[in-house]
């Protein structure tokens, strides 16, 4: 093999002098430059820090719930305070990331997409279930209290156990089922625009569990399917492509003991849903469908 990649054992300076004849000391220079810049950065950061402490209005104060079953000193739940420099357009997630990367790398929370589609970072911010990535700091009152979702088991810091929520979601047979497909191999099932419109909002759920956490009924009754799962059932029950038989089956599922009747129309699910899904409306519509369905057999 004739690739000319230098061996890793050679140090960079030697390599530089071998291969780059016109600038033998370039590596050194660059390194010095780098060091200088790194120092500058550090100085700058320190200066900023000092400045921040002085000019308090440019920082936001976060009070973050901390708990870790494994680590001594964190086994007792507590709140930690972080001061984060404010920048325009900053979200709660940005602030948390800043706090983690700058002050305490053990600060733990789920996050991924930063754009309200992955549903990882629902948390309790100033007393409301919010997606951290979608919550602008400047709309909140300070100090900003950040806690894990209520009514769920806390795994660590802001991370809660989602298993129960997933169980509920999966209990409503959350998958499309039908008995009739079009004949042609490359043929789609037809669906009217109106029907798509009808289910559209319900398909937007990102499984963040904010709604479930906000519902008092779900808090009191662990088996209650909860608004998200019922909404999932709605998504399929109302999809005309599934056909009548399956709609019957769907109604039976949501009519179970811990199904739609448990909902007391508290509306908090609808209020907190970051995807603006009209959950209560969907639940109520299913109740009416179920009643209509039951009346048929009278």
């Amino acid at each position, binding site marked *: 093999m004739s*690739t*000319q*990649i*230098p*061996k*890793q054992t*050679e140090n*960079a300076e030697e*390599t*530089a002098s071998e*291969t780059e004849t016109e600038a033998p000391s370039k*590596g050194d220079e660059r390194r010095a430059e*780098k060091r200088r810049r790194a120092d500058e950065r550090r100085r700058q950061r320190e200066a900023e820090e000092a400045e921040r402490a002085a000019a308090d209005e440019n920082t936001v104060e976060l009070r973050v719930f901390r708990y*870790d*079953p*494994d*680590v001594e000193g964190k086994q007792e739940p507590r709140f930690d305070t972080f001061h984060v420099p404010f920048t325009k*357009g900053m979200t709660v997630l940005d602030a948390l990331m800043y706090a*983690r*990367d700058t002050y305490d*790398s*053990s600060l*733990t929370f*789920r996050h*991924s*997409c*930063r*754009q*309200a*589609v*992955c*549903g*990882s970072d629902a948390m309790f911010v100033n007393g409301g279930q919010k997606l951290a990535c*979608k919550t*602008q700091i400047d709309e909140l009152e300070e100090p900003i209290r950040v806690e894990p979702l209520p009514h769920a088991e806390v*795994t*660590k810091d802001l991370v809660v156990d*989602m298993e129960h929520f997933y169980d509920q979601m999966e209990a409503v*047979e959350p*998958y*499309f089922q*039908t008995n009739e*497909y079009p004949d042609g*191999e*490359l*043929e*789609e*099932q*037809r*669906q*009217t*625009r109106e029907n*798509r419109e009808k*289910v*559209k909002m319900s*398909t*937007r759920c*990102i*499984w963040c569990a904010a709604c479930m956490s906000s519902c008092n009924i779900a808090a009191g009754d662990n088996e209650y399917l909860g608004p998200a799962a019922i909404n999932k059932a709605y998504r399929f029950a109302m*999809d005309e492509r599934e056909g009548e038989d399956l709609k019957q089956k769907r109604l039976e599922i949501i009519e179970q003991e811990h199904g739609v009747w448990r909902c007391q129309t508290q509306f908090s699910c609808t209020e907190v849903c970051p995807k603006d899904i009209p959950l209560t409306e969907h639940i109520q519509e299913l109740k009416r469908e179920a009643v209509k369905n039951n009346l048929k057999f009278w």
Partner: protein
Amino acid sequence: MYEHDVVVVGAGGAGLRAAIAAQEEGADVAIVSKLHPVRSHTGAAEGGINAALRDADSWEDHAYDTMKGSDYLGDAPAVEALCKESPEEVIQLEHWGMPFSREEDGRVSQRPFGGLSFPRTTYAGAETGHQMLHTMYEQVVKRGITVYDEWHVMDLVVTNEEDPADRSCHGVVAYDIQRGEVDGFRANGGVILATGGMGQVFDHTTNAVANTGDGVAMAYRAGVPMEDMEFIQFHPTTLPSTGVLISEGVRGEGGILYNEKGERFMFEHGYANNDGELASRDVVSRAELTEVNEGRGIEDEYVHLDMRHLGEERILDRLENILHLAEDFEGADGLTEPMPVKPGQHYAMGGIETNEHGETVIEGLYAAGECACASVHGANRLGGNALPELIVFGKRAGHHAAGKEMGEAEIPTGRTGDWEPAEYEFEVDVGAVGDRGPAAADGGAVAADAEGLLEAEIERARERVEDLLARKGRNHAEIRSAVQETMTANVNVFREEEGLKESLADLREAREAYAEVAVSDPSRTFNTDLIHTMETRNILDIAEALAMGALARREFRGAHWRKERQERDDENWLKHTLVSWNDGEPELWYKPAILEGEAKTYEPKVRSY
């Protein structure tokens, strides 16, 4: 230790489709993913899925467009497989209940997209990826496929023969994030990597925080070459403050780009006289940056994307979530004002070298989705071509891994056929520093059987975790941001020799710093500090290969622009760049692009829009 026929790493579109396919073939499948499936970044895709569904359209046209878009660096067998199978896969999604947008007659809608000769992009509002991801996850639930979520796969379990082509893959070792334990997953049939993008190599990206290119880095260290890493797509319309993507759908529907002077620069400054805003992404990204560099940008940073003239009804019908994005993440109201946009890292055309069946050079190791390079996108991906790639190649890899007979692949993998070594000298060291956290294949334990190999790898992974937790040292966050900084400064849309060299030197420094990395959170429960530290290693490996490829390729092709040579050089560069880890000493080599397809031979033409 867990045991399955097929282990799929990653639960985005590609991983889910692969798992379903393998199960269809009767295999016992498990999905191992560091995120719960519905958290995967496929959910962020907005625009749509290209498929030649209509009579007036044909897969051949789609293939032609794709090849042209790739700037003739796609491999024809893969491109043709994509275009031929995409329609049936899209219909399959529809049959699984995916809520596509509809026409009056009830059929799925299609819209025009950049670089396409026919409006063949099927979509579900501006949330196509979300709907696709959820539809497939629903099928996974229906089939009862085992999902191990919140397990971070650390490394592959691969034998360590001298030549990667002789190696075989027997499973993976993973870290259970919830419980803080390392365990192994043995795969009797095959391991399919579907770990998605690597946007975290850059600091302004549309990708998720979890998109750290783990699969690419794992395969790389196990001996699979990384292909065409220098080709990174920068999306022309991302929000300046966060990198959140404003879908190409906006321009597809008729959105217009303006500079500070209110000029429609795509036409007025002659960047794309025919297609204007709908020209290929690289063309538009460069146009925007040129406007900014020449002082016609707004606040010297961005340009304006205006969709007000489309009217409220149409916007609400087709682009509603764009309104939310602009509002929530940038504070702009798309109905009453233009939205600020600038280019941001969006998609990696390159990745794990595979053939059109998703096989890598290592037996039993597959890759599909954004982490793989089959290669269908060549030097530049067309909008709406990634989602079909996930389902087509996800399915293919799944089927193959589950033992379905699929015939001989036409694309060679590894150093077979007409490969050639690269005559390029790097000025700084690349590759491993010392022997920190070596991957499976480099210096791994030699064990007689798969079982023993897995045991040894689990042990080694445990030691690595313990070591990272025990020692004192530097925080990964600094190192990660140093990498992102230099990559964004030097390996961005515009690339110059000096900058690229600078980046390699910076990366070397970062690698050296990484040798001293430590995890400060001692917890065994949900230790994200540890996960991010492991990810940073992957980012380093990828960034380096990316910069190496970018430095070596002295031409302007697709997304890769070089100041030194601002034109395409078909004479010398109609070939793929490959980087092999080579047990810690990265090696650069090339193999020719395959332009002879089943339909025709794709003769390189000038790519103008």
